[in-house]
């Protein structure tokens, strides 16, 4: 069968097509099949029609975090799906070793910021899409940056970065007094991850589905070897590498901080590990294994990235348009067992330290911290659960029962009113107590009294 030009090969380099102002014929055919017709599998509130297509084209803003192996796939998939306003954030520059799978990059791009090049390439290839790059760390952006987006898609390889974004995004979430999440404060995330032939995709709707923290246990802990084994009885190439990395570096290069991104440092680790391996008649120490062990990297597989990113892009489309019910809620892919995928629904942790509602407690804004603690101790909901509570507001320790030096330092706060300690709006306080297994989140609500109103309005 003869294919119509451009229809099935939107990636074919045909500059004359790119230069045209109208869409490639058939550009919206598949999307329109999903968005223009009603159906029995659609999600709640789905509104079939051209407005929905225009919405993802013009109004819906999606942030992609990471422009690496997954990020390249995600940007390409989201752009081709029809999302018109994308932004991408990545702090890395392009390395020659990325080129085999991070297909938006070319040899001449080595050394350039990934976010910048990825954005340029996607805009060159997919007409009508705007991609704004951010070449920086995610920590460099404040929460108002993340709040601009309707959906945030994660293509990250680190637990720390996921955990950070999760805390930021769950921080937008607010609950009604009855404990139900306020819909306008929910910012959905779609998280992809790959490790060799294994991958996952999941949908995080804060307040409704488990957040990253609720299901931290899904991530296996990092493999660590006993230090004395490394020092005394190495048995594998990884043991030799870890010895040089953790112990020999400090002995031979005193005062120098090891930097895994410094090629000279990595080469030194590799050479010393190879020597050590020879002493113990161990074979298999290579430069790439050294990088893998030190940076805890498992080789990336392009097809895993493609499968996971495609799943993430589709879920993003579903969340934005409700053209289909969303995935519930976690998909695992294991490429080593054939093309095996399964989804399962795990539970939200009702006491999650990041996304749970917090128990509402209503007090006057003038209540001192000591009085507030007394209120908690008298509250029947916390009976037998707390006896000597410590109170923190985000990173600020308002009152610590232990150790003595912190108790002494925070004691003056007991006489200060909550309004002074936490501002006039109230908010979430974290309560720690030996009797509690986890952290108790208390949502402080200030009573509004006529007197307060008068003082506030007067003047």
């Amino acid at each position, binding site marked *: 069968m003869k294919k119509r030009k451009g229809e099935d090969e939107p990636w074919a380099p045909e500059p004359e097509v790119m230069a045209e102002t109208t869409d490639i014929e058939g550009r919206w055919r598949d999307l329109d099949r999903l968005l223009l017709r009603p159906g029995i599998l659609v999600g709640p*509130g789905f509104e079939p029609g051209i407005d929905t297509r*225009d919405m993802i084209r013009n*109004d*819906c*803003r999606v942030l992609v975090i990471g422009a690496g192996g997954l990020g390249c796939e995600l940007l390409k998939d989201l752009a081709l799906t029809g999302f018109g*306003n994308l932004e991408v954030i990545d702090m890395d520059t392009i390395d020659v070793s990325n080129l085999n799978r991070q297909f938006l990059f070319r040899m001449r791009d080595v050394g350039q910021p990934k976010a910048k090049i990825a954005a340029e390439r996607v805009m060159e290839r997919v007409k009508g899409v705007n991609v704004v790059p951010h070449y920086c760390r995610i920590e460099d952006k*404040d*929460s*108002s940056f993340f709040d*601009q*987006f*309707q959906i945030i898609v994660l293509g990250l390889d680190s*637990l*720390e970065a996921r*955990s*950070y974004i999760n*805390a*930021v995004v769950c*921080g937008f979430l607010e609950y009604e007094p009855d404990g139900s999440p306020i*819909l306008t404060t*929910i910012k*959905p995330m779609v998280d992809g991850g790959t490790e060799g032939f294994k991958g996952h995709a999941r949908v995080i*709707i804060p307040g*409704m589905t488990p957040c990253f*923290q609720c299901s*931290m246990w899904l*991530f296996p*802990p990092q493999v*660590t*070897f*006993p*230090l*004395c084994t490394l*020092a*005394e009885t190495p048995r594998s190439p990884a043991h030799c590498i870890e010895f040089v990395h*953790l*112990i020999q570096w*400090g*002995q031979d290069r*005193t005062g120098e901080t090891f930097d895994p991104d410094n090629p000279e440092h990595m080469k030194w680790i590799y050479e010393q590990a190879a020597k050590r391996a020879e002493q113990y008649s161990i074979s298999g120490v290579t430069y790439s294994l050294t990088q893998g062990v030190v940076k805890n990297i498992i080789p990336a597989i392009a097809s895993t990235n493609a499968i996971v990113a495609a799943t993430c892009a589709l879920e993003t489309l579903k*969340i*934005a348009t409700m053209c289909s019910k*969303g995935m*519930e809620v976690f998909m695992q892919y294991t490429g080593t067992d054939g093309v095996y995928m399964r989804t399962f629904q795990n539970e939200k942790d009702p006491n999650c*330290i*990041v996304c749970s509602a917090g128990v509402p407690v209503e007090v006057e804004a003038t209540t001192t911290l000591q009085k507030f603690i007394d209120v908690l101790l008298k509250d029947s909901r916390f009976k037998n659960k707390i006896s000597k509570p410590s109170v*923190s507001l*985000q*990173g*600020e*320790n308002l009152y*610590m*029962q*232990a*150790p003595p*030096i912190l108790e002494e*330092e925070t004691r003056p706060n007991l006489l200060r009113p909550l309004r002074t300690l936490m501002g006039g709006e109230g908010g979430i306080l974290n309560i*720690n*107590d030996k009797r509690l297994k986890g*952290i108790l989140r208390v949502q402080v609500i200030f009573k509004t009294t006529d007197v307060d109103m008068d003082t506030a309005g007067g003047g």
Partner: protein
Amino acid sequence: MIKLFSVKQKQKEAAESANGRAPVKKQSPGELRVQKDISELNLAKTTSISFPNGKDNLLNFEITIRPDEGYYQGGTFVFTFQISQVYPHEAPKVKCKTKVYHPNIDLEGNVCLNILREDWNPVLSVNSIIYGLQYLFLDPNPDDPLNHEAAEVLRENPRQFENNVRRSMAGGYVGGNHFPRCI
């Protein structure tokens, strides 16, 4: 699942609401959990804690141990703790700041304690590690050596080991290595 935004919703709304919100640095799960650990610390009289970066940075602190029995009685040993943002998923990084002649602590301050590495488990806490460190001074273990020479002396000749420990703590040389005074 629920429908989160309507077709008519424009990005402007989101941008406007963003402007009204003050940027807040989010507290990481590691910080939250270490807050709990620290608020429940139960330190023995031989142990103290200090926070070089102030009361609101609990991710970095120092533990000082002054054993009141055993080979190391009378010495003062300082350990630095570095807690990761994803603690307790990952164990704290602990180093001994005081140069010590000890079979399970090397001269760079690396500590061989199982719960710091292969046996770490998220139900453990800062308290458990401090107990572990105290135990290392009461009962140094020659079978899991990081300082090979010290382990050998302890195994072969405990009296010699005791002398070496005393000499090192008083600020002397053992096996060609100088140890600063820590008594």
